[in-house]
């Protein structure tokens, strides 16, 4: 038990040290430029104090002059209405598209993966096409997608889909092909028809592979959406970042990045929970009492 306290203390110490260096470190740059890197200039990376101010403002906790909205006439909701670019709206836009990109990507990836994994003939026909498209870095397709589908939500879902689909498809495909022959034989010997074998053996067996790919799938969905927002968007955290870059507002950029980090962690943890439930029969996730 002792050890755990020390671990946490060390972690807290690191965070405090990082924040302190970030906030005041650059002041030492003039005299000790061998110690403090130039990029620590708040012009580029902002400072915790500035970041916090901008966060409060963007999140509609304070108005433009830094005065708290709580207790004023219009208050929080009024501020949200007045500033359509507030942090909540931006975060929601990104999350919304991440969710749909994930759902559609996983759904289509699993379906096509199962079909091609089960029917060898079809797989052989489509294999060269799939390899060709997969070899292309899907990120390179994003400008094309934005061109085709515009600046709205659809193009973001598409960019997320194009990355998630291939990941999930390949996992499903390999999983479906690697089903244990003996499991299939056992089912056949118990009288299972082809369809029953697919439903009761191939699908559950493949799902282990698929569920393993869910965590990266969620991350890639987020990446796809963000990149889509970089290239062309009306809203979203990616747009906040790219605009901040254009207007040299490093504090805004940092706020967006922090929120993204929180979002990323939350999604990963959430998916892991789902995985642990779905794969509770695997040693990896089993809780031994």
């Amino acid at each position, binding site marked *: 038990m002792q050890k755990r306290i020390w671990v946490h203390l060390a972690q807290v110490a690191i965070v405090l040290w990082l924040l302190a260096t970030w906030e005041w470190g650059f002041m030492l740059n003039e005299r000790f430029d061998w110690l403090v890197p130039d990029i620590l200039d708040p012009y580029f990376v902002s400072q915790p104090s500035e970041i916090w101010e901008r966060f409060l403002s963007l999140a509609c906790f304070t108005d433009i002059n830094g005065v708290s909205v709580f207790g004023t006439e219009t208050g929080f909701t009024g501020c949200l209405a007045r500033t359509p670019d507030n942090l909540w709206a931006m975060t929601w836009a990104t999350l919304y598209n991440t969710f749909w990109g994930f759902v559609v990507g996983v759904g289509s990836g699993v379906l096509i993966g199962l079909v091609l994994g089960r029917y060898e003939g079809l797989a052989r026909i489509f294999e060269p096409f799939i390899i060709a498209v997969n070899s292309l870095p899907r990120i390179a397709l994003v400008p094309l997608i934005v061109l085709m589908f515009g600046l709205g939500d659809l193009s973001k879902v598409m960019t997320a889909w194009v990355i998630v689909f291939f990941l999930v498809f390949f996992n499903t495909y390999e999983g479906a092909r690697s089903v*244990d022959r*003996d*499991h299939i*034989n*056992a*089912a*056949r*010997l*118990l*009288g*299972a028809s082809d369809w*029953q074998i697919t439903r*009761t*053996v191939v699908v*559950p*067996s493949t*799902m*282990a592979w698929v569920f393993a790919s869910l965590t990266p799938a969620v991350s890639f969905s987020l990446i796809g959406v963000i990149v889509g927002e970089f290239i062309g968007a009306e809203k979203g955290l990616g747009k906040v970042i790219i605009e901040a870059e254009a207007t040299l507002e490093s504090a805004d950029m940092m706020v967006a990045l922090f929120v993204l980090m929180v979002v990323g962690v939350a999604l990963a943890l959430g998916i892991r929970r789902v995985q642990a439930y779905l794969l*509770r*029969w*695997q*040693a990896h996730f*089993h809780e031994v009492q």
Partner: protein
Amino acid sequence: MTAASRIAPADPSAGAPRTDEAPRGAADRVRIEVRGLVKSYRLHGREIAAVDDISFAIREGEFVALIGPSGCGKSTVLNMIAGLIPCTAGDIRIDGQPVRTGRPAPAVGYVFQRDTVYPWRTVRRNIGYGLELTGVPAAEREARIREAVGQAGLEGFEDAYPLALSGGMRQRVALMRTLIVRPEILLMDEPFGALDTHTKLDMHRTLLDIWGRERQTVLFVTHDLAEALTLSDRIIVLSARPGRIKETFEVTLERPRDPVRLRESADYADSFSRIWHCLGEEFAKAKAE
């Protein structure tokens, strides 16, 4: 009186033991008949004969052990009878009907060497799998599963996943999964090979118990002579590769047999040493390869 009498070696009609016992009645119809069975593979351009001209017949209610050194093709013979692999030449009939590859006969149950229980299903759902496939109503399913669980000594583990079970328990689940659909013919491929001695003896007891009541027609593949003597009525010894029938022995040790106490009897020791000599030659040949 010897408890194991030798039947004329390599006799194609060795299905009918030539003893002085009373002639068998119509109830002892032939259930499995194999004639001139041959299996060869192409490996690196060469033709390798795995099994060469095997013929035997098994009657209703007989427990026959197929024994031989590793690589002699005994599992291959079993898999051809089960319809899992095609034969290169020869005739296989179950209840007079020819066996077709990929379409196992419905009255046949098969137990694999490695446990093929489905890791994503609980013990209960694994055992009930065959009943699910044939649409047995839930109430009846539950009752039969309960009975099977009792027979296998798995009480308390009904809702556990296979990963929480020992190898012996998993093999028991696999055994009950096969037996619960009440197959009249059982094909068993060294089902207890991976178990430790004590568990194996337990499984022998369980199997003898169940077989004593149900009297299935059994073909049991093993390399363990003690196991074959404990369980079977007749032992077919296969030669080293390519597998041919070397000799067939009738086992007349009294039933019911207790796996542990059986080994203390003089009859058992006598049978063992007779057959061992025959078998040992083949083991040596297989090793010399």
